């Protein structure tokens, strides 16, 4: 991608390093998230996709490197500024993370009640509008436990757009959904991005869905970015990583085995012990 001017970037990540204890998750990662686009970050389970979103949201701090959100270093701003930035972004958790003690309506109303002083009638209209967008206006009185997985994600999406954010981050929005729901969610992501002028980040391992919905893709493995480009560019590239990923091959540059001692020695070790 041609070097974009900083104003055109919603998020700019430079030389990001992060470890969970001794386990290195990111080892020098650079990512640009352009405004108004859908950017996908793809990687196998356990590469740190959720961790990346939490780093962008300022819930985790990197050991070195920087994450600039709208030009501000999210890990070096005051708590008030952090909260101000967070109101501009939404993170859609993999599980939805709905409040289980509140109805669908109250879940969507939650950020509005916390951050605005709207009169009840206006609040109600706003919530119903957000629910209408995701097609669940009729489900307003249900409790989260009564929703299917796909519905829960749509409610979470309605809640995520309640404060009209500038950016939404989706954590594995397609995982574990039936094909119809996947289609619905893909359409919603595209529609919200284009009609609300949002910036979207999707992290996922569903290559085919991602290449259909995203404008630009990053591939991540073993703590590094191993490829990036538009879906077409990636589809035609010769990289082994990408072939393994696109083809769904069990072994390749992404190993099938978790790091372990030599197999024969490991088996023999039991004999001598």
């Amino acid at each position, binding site marked *: 991608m041609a070097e974009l001017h900083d104003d055109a970037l919603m998020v700019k990540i430079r030389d990001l390093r992060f470890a969970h204890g001794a386990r290195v998750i990111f080892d020098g990662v650079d990512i640009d998230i352009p405004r108004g686009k859908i950017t996908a970050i793809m990687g196998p389970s356990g590469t740190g996709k959720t961790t990346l979103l*939490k780093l962008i*949201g300022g*819930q985790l701090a990197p050991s070195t490197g920087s994450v600039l959100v709208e030009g501000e270093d999210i890990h070096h701003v005051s708590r008030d500024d952090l*909260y*101000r930035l*967070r*109101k501009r*972004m*939404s*993170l859609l*958790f993999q*599980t939805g*993370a*709905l*409040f*289980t003690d509140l109805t669908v309506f109250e879940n969507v109303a*939650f*950020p509005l009640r*916390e*951050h605005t002083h709207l009169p009840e009638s206006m609040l109600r209209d706003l919530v119903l509008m957000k629910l209408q967008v995701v097609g669940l206006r009729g489900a307003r009185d249900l409790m989260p436990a009564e929703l299917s997985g796909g519905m829960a994600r749509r409610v979470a999406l309605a809640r995520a757009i309640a*404060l009209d954010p500038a950016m939404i981050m989706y954590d594995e929005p397609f995982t574990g959904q039936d094909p119809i729901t996947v289609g619905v969610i893909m359409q919603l992501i595209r529609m919200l991005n284009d009609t609300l002028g949002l910036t979207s980040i999707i992290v996922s391992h569903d290559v085919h869905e991602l290449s259909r919905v995203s404008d630009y893709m990053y591939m991540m493995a073993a703590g590094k970015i191993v490829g990036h480009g538009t879906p077409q560019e990636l589809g035609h590239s010769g990289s082994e990583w990408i072939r393994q990923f696109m083809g769904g091959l069990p072994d390749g540059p992404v190993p099938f085995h978790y790091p372990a001692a030599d197999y024969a020695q490991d088996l023999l070790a039991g004999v001598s012990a």
Partner: protein
Amino acid sequence: MIDWFQKLGRSSLALFERLGRGGLFLMRVFAAIPSLVPRPRLVIIQLYSVGVLSMMLIVISGLNVGMVLGLQGYNTLVDFGAEESLGQVVALSLVRELGPVVAALLFAGRAGSALTAEIGLMKATEQLSGMEMMAVDPMKRVIVPRFIAAIISMPLLAAMFSAMGILGGYFVGVGLLGVDSGAFWSQMQGKVDFYEDIMNGLVKSVVFGFVAAWIAVFEGYDAVPTTEGVSRATTRTVVHTAFAVLGLDFILTALMFGSV
């Protein structure tokens, strides 16, 4: 032997680390309290689930304990022909000791464990993280309202326990065993001192309530966010509260009533 010392050292280090973290946590709780002043509704909602829902257990247990006290007290007193003092015995045992202590233990089992499990599960299901990402501080929105509600509830529940216990003692002593009703009440009135007994009992229940509330919300907030972690945190709440309450009870009793 060295092994044993190592283990002792390691567990005392762990204990102090935990106490330290609990202390820091408490500071953050205190710092967040002012933010609740404009939003009393958050506390009132919790008062219902923490306090009101614990009332049934407290009422029934208080009544039972009082009835047993009435029975046991009568059997002892009657040998000395002092069964008229039953009212005093029942009231003093309840107000000074059993009210605050038993109410705190029941409170830990009923409300404390529920608070820990609720907060722990909110953490495990990323509801707390989600709140943070919505620029809402879970400390202010979730932890402090529950903490305050627990602190308010405990002394009231302890008082209720004592009152029900006295009623239970009355039913058994006066109703079943034939102690004179007037003597029962007048002995109680004469021998129970407002400052010495009732205020000291109240101080105990406030201290126990504070400790029970602190342990319950801290264990929930600090829980390892997995099914197993939450289950362990819930157990810890009940066990630690019990130890803390019993230990503090001895210290407070010695300070208040003792010539130790």
